[in-house]
């Protein structure tokens, strides 16, 4: 699905990723956690082909879809139009019906302008738009950012369901507790480097990792 080895990404003279290696196998749900400025979004943009690495190796297989940080919906378009564009690469499969079955909360919103929805509704549309492309692996950047706990729990429930159906997920989160709860494996990123990795339970149980990088109390 995703195999990145020793990725180096630079913005001019600044190095944003310095030899990062991560992998997501078929059907796996993996978390990438770290503080602001750790390089999480740079890694997302590189994996999704928006940025080019200066060095390293990146292999992806299957269809990959992105739920970007901050939702990035097409504000002037309706919810339904946003969903249709999620399948832009697949002209023959732009029927949005299956998304309304997966995410019934979107049914009453379908004709509404996306830019006027609440943050939680927008995140649901962003998830639906990404699922429109019938991806094999979903990359979600900061799913919970700025959302109420009840909304986050609802989104996490949908994510668990899709994962149970076989979808691989790379979840990028500042909310370490949520990420480790949802995913079986995790990477901790700091200043452009992977400083810890392993099973989520192991990382959450490690006093050093939990206090230094995850903001969890030991």
């Amino acid at each position: 699905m995703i195999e990145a080895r020793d990725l180096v990404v630079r913005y001019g003279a600044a190095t944003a990723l310095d030899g990062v290696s991560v992998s997501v196998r078929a059907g796996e749900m993996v978390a990438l956690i770290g503080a602001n400025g750790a390089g999480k979004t740079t890694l997302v943009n590189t994996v999704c082909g928006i940025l080019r690495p200066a060095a390293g190796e990146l292999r992806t297989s299957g269809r990959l879809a992105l739920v970007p940080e901050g939702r990035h919906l097409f504000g002037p378009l309706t919810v339904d139009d946003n969903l249709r564009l999620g399948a832009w690469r697949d002209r023959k499969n732009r029927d949005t019906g299956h998304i309304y079955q997966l995410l019934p909360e979107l049914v009453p919103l379908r004709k509404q302008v996306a830019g006027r929805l609440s943050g939680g509704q927008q995140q649901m549309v962003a998830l639906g738009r990404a699922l429109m492309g019938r991806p094999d692996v979903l990359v979600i950047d900061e799913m919970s950012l700025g959302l109420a706990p009840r909304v986050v729990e609802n989104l996490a429930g949908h994510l668990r369901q899709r994962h149970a159906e076989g979808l691989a997920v790379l979840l990028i989160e500042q909310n370490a507790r949520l990420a480790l709860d949802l995913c079986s494996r995790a990477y901790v990123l700091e200043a452009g480097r992977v400083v810890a990795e392993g099973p989520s339970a192991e990382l959450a149980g490690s006093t050093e990792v939990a206090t230094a990088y995850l903001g969890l109390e030991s």
Partner: protein
Amino acid sequence: MGELAQYLVTGVGLGCAYALTGSGLVVIYRVTRVVNFAQGSFAVLGALTVTTLLAAGLPHGVAEGLGVLLAGLVGVLVGVVATGKPGTTPQAGLIVTLGLGVFAYAVEIFFWGDQPRSFPGLPGAVGGIQTHYLLIIGVTAVVLGATALLFARTDLGRALTATAADPYAARAVGIDVVRMGLFAFAVGGALGGLAGVLITPVQQVSFDSDVALVVSGFSAAILGNLTRPGLTLVGGLLLGVVQALVGGYLSTAYQSEVALIFMLVVLIARAGRRDLVEAA
């Protein structure tokens, strides 16, 4: 037919050309955020091409169609130069289009000289109204209606709007934003070319006619903040009618000033509103 009615019809015809030019600016700006100062050149190139094709014996309709097509292709070329290189800012693109507009003068003078040219339009009159003005109004209504449908009802139009709204997200769903920008330049070029082709039978065109057209088209588009085609049409028609009335009842010497005054009033009014918003 009365004098006033004549001026009104002439003004609406003229306003249609401004609305088409302005709509070209709007399509390009919405998708690429580039204010295309070469927009008037599309009209001049299209019109001058038609004079040559008609002189070569091509029938009406075919010659005009090829003139519009050429303007669309030139639009793509302008788009490639102004936005094709990744990382080019809209401000740099604006300066590039300004340079290309000036360069177009050299090309036009080389091929067609510096004297004004024209070609015959639709002959005859209906109820005292020159038939060609009715053609201008009819074609403009159909073309702008089709452009509105393209944006509102097709996936291509949605992708163009998506590119304008959020280029990052557009790239993330697989939309080629550079190609969308070039398509917008093609549509903008064709709309500009159509304006020139339609107006030339009632108003001669020369290499420097682009200035009057782009100033009027820009004035029309600025009413809709360079993003709203409906208001651009209203602005174009309003401008055309006021210019015709000023030309008819005062002096044709004041016609070009009307567009500038119109633009200044709209810009000052908008600046005042922005100040109010910021103050709030």
